């Protein structure tokens, strides 16, 4: 059902955890699925220096969380805002059709975290 990449990120998720005194926090939930995803950012000079996540969700949700953190780290906030769920899914070599919505969660949580940072630092 899942690609090897998905299973790799699912079994060894990168950047799990929380950042204390994070510069930005994004939380999204999908009511229908009941899934919740939280992303924590450390930002310096508009660049994502550190990023961590927590996820309650299926294998695809955990793998996309992990992947999105890997893709975002080191990027400028503007670059990170451009990250799409499609790009995350593609980086995982694809997701089953009925799991595409899970990848929305990850990109959305990242974007929420960036917005939250910008609100706090404007």
């Amino acid at each position, binding site marked *: 059902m899942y690609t090897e990449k998905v299973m790799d990120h699912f079994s060894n*998720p990168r950047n*799990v955890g929380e950042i204390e005194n994070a510069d930005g926090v994004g939380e999204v939930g999908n009511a229908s699925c009941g899934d919740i995803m939280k992303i924590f950012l450390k930002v310096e000079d508009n660049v994502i220096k550190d990023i961590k996540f927590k996820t*309650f969700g299926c294998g695809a949700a*955990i793998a996309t969380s992990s992947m999105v953190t890997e893709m975002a780290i080191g990027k400028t906030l503007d670059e990170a805002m451009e990250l799409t769920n499609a790009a995350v899914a593609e980086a995982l070599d694809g997701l089953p059709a009925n799991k595409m919505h899970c990848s929305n969660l990850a990109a959305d949580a990242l974007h929420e975290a960036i917005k939250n940072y910008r609100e706090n630092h404007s």
Partner: protein
Amino acid sequence: MKKIYMDYNATTPVRPEVLDAILPFYREEFGNPSSVHWAGRAVSGAVEKAREQVAKLINCSPAEVVFTSCGSEGDNMALKGTVAALRDKGNHIITTGVEHPAVLETCHYLEKNGCDVTFLTVDSDGMVDLRQLEDAITEKTILISAMWGNNETGTLFPVEEIGRIARKHKVRFHTDAVQAVGKIPVDVQKAGADLLVLSGHKIGAPKGVGAIYIRRGTRMTPLIHGGHQERNRRAGTHNVAGIVGLGMACELAGQNLEQNAERMAHLRDKLEQGILNQIPDVKVNGHRTQRLPNTLNVSFAYIEGESLLLNFDMKGVAASSGSACTSGSLEPSHVMGAMGVDVALAHSSTRFSLGPDSTEEDVDYILEILPPIIQRLREMSPLYPGNK
């Protein structure tokens, strides 16, 4: 890697004796039982023998057994066949909110086609209220459809009492016994059922065969019209090998039924106790005593079911979950919902279902791998208070 199958409520391997019994019917005795020549004759005897084996397990007469292709077909036949045959009597059906989709979706279809359906609620153990059932009966009620054992939680309905209420009000009683048959004694007379559905692949027969008990004199419109098979109650060339397998599986299930049930209950209880002793924030779903002997449904708080199943899978353990994330549907288990389990805990619900081949070692292995998996997943969870 060690493989541990704990998903017998989903399906079962074909039992070796069943496989032996069916093999001759693919190439040697391949005839059509409706044929009059040698190729048909050998085979029609085998079909009738299987009918007797099924009848014996559920205590009815062979003529009351009709072979089907699966439990879902049986449930559709029971509901649609009753509605079509009793149109002149009424259009009201009573069922429960925790039935299998084969009953629930059929009821929703019938609702769109002129039926009134009452979906009885259940309590937090998944149990129906007989008072509520009796109160729901009206002049137009033609059918009560209530399952014998729940596939997700194992909760057993009081079928004998339901049957009594049905008889008292002269309402037909259908019970979906797909999960009960072969695991506990099932007697259509005691239950007072007019219709009862079972499915082969849940009891060691191949997939693609099932049966419906239709009490003598019960008017039914066929779901599948055509040839004269099954005394005009179900058309289509007989699935001879499947039917022979179902017969043998019923015979095997009937042998030592109670000892096997006790053995499974012992293992299941050990698993349950082990989990409760080792892992905090665990909720057992389903009735504590009125429960199938092989079924354990637990919610591991803060963890989503599919991610747990994938971790199990990586360790060779096959189980199942009530999370929407595994089923491709949007809502998590309707059974958990009907029991009032909150959405997060419904997503956490995990079903272990044991079978005749389950062993003490299987249980020990699960109890060994479970705590670290739960710990790791909880640490990843934004809901877990231990992390805050």
